């Protein structure tokens, strides 16, 4: 199982701040596809996916216990 966080505007798309999913062994790209099916439009608002608090590449593999996060365009400062 991995944990998935949604932030800011994406949280309004999904209606939840976080959830768990059985995506161990899948890639970050597949996580994106999985979320896009469940939450149409989510990829339009997410600029990056982070895994364990670091920006991830599409080909990175997810492991059991990983914490993923959909990161909308940042706008701090």
């Amino acid at each position, binding site marked *: 199982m991995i944990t998935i966080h949604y932030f800011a*505007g994406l949280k309004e798309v999904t209606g939840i701040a976080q959830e768990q999913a059985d995506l161990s062994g899948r890639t970050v790209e597949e996580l994106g596809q999985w979320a896009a099916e469940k939450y149409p439009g989510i990829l339009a608002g997410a*600029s990056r996916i982070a895994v364990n608090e670091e920006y991830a590449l599409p080909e990175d593999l997810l492991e059991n216990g990983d914490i993923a996060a959909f990161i909308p365009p*940042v*706008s*701090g400062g």
Partner: protein
Amino acid sequence: MKAFEIVSQAIDPQHYADMVLRPEAGAVTLFTGHVREWTKGVRTLYLSYEAYIPMAEKKLAQIGAEIEERWPGAKTAIAHRIGELAISDIAVVIAVSSPRRKAAYEANEYAIERIKEIVPIWKKEIWEDGEEWIGDQKKKPGGEGL
């Protein structure tokens, strides 16, 4: 208090300036970003900031490390506030000390630019007739994104 942190209370900038001061520091630059009332003719009532806190603090610390590498001898402290902020409230403070002033100015400006690039913090503007997350998060269906 940490040198790189996300806080939910009012920021006292002097604490971060004190944190970077050392006998070899000849210059300290302190930048504070404030909630502005008017942006492009639209009046802001208040702002709301959200952060992915543990990752945001890691990224702030990364910016501090990047600065030490680019400007040897420079020391940095950064805090960003989340939650609801009123006009003139401090959203972000960046303190940089350095033996010489040129590096203190340059590194400070570098820090705010990097914050706007890599730190997972999001701003929502609330106006009299609506609100919006800044950064086009739901505006281009099928457009940009991943």
